[in-house]
């Protein structure tokens, strides 16, 4: 996606948003990035990852709460919590030279 949009220019920095409730581990992405980027417009680019915290809304009492994981129940006792944030997997922006 980044290579397609860079139009052949060298990419210096890439910003990703990875939600803390997504299935993706930022550390694993960092670990693989250099390997995947080798030989592409992204080679040598700085990878920045914004880790969005999980947030949900209880479908029973309608209150919003912080979600550390998908098993977290609302303090009111209900487990049916709608996830509002934390599942993002996005490429936000890049710097090209």
């Amino acid at each position, binding site marked *: *996606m*980044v290579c397609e*949009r*860079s139009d052949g220019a060298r990419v*210096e*920095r890439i910003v*990703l948003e990875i939600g803390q409730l997504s*299935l993706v581990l930022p550390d694993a992405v960092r670990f693989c990035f250099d390997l995947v980027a080798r030989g592409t417009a992204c080679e040598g680019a700085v990878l920045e990852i914004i880790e969005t915290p999980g947030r949900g809304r209880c479908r029973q009492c309608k209150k919003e709460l912080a979600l550390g*994981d*998908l*098993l977290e*129940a609302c303090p009111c006792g209900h*487990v*049916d919590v709608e996830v509002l944030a934390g599942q993002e*997997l*996005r*490429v*936000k*922006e*890049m*710097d*090209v*030279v």
Partner: protein
Amino acid sequence: MCAHCGCSTPETDHAHPHSPSHPHHHPHRTVSLEQDILAKNDRLARQNRAFFDERRIAAVNLMSSPGAGKTTLLERTLAELGSPCAVVEGDQATDRDAERIRSTGAPVVQINTGTGCHLDAHMVMHAAEELDPAAGSLLVIENVGNLVCPALFALGEHLRVVVLSVTEGDDKPEKYPHMFRASDVLLVNKIDLLPYVPFDLECCIERAKRVQPKLEILAVSALRGDGMAAWYEILRSLSSQRS
């Protein structure tokens, strides 16, 4: 951020103000992308869905860890359901599962993902084209055995079914919450083995409901046939909604 021109270089790092007589070249430019990493898969999944809907095909994404009994479940389903059904088989290697399905007489296409741990919408698109399922039929996509990654990849399916066998333990829904949260139906399989393994069915159901309160849960034995009638009802109901 530079307040003069909006570049991300701190203002103190480069000379300002700019004047028309003093051309200013930025070392880089920032491009806003704001694109979902899975956008391409999701777009192809929507195309698959349109293809299925056009043919009134009900598509099921069947997921589980390896060895939970997906193929055995499918073999019995194909023999007993009594309505046309086509199958996409996903495995890293071999066409053994496709052979098993073929021997029931159902049309099948095997996808070998090689090192891949899940099916994606692009693979399913080509498999569906090759399979060319009849209008009004049921299409079951048996995903690669894996309780993690398939949860992330939409295939264009109308129903997501996760199979959990009793030999895996009753705590799986909480250990792999993404998969159970992303599913519509949970089939607890191999209940013929319940007398021999420490698996608490009630506890498993409670845990699964905690992860996904809307989950429809059935206890079955694909090998012996227990509980399969209720599973067929789910499939028939899905097919009738699509026709």
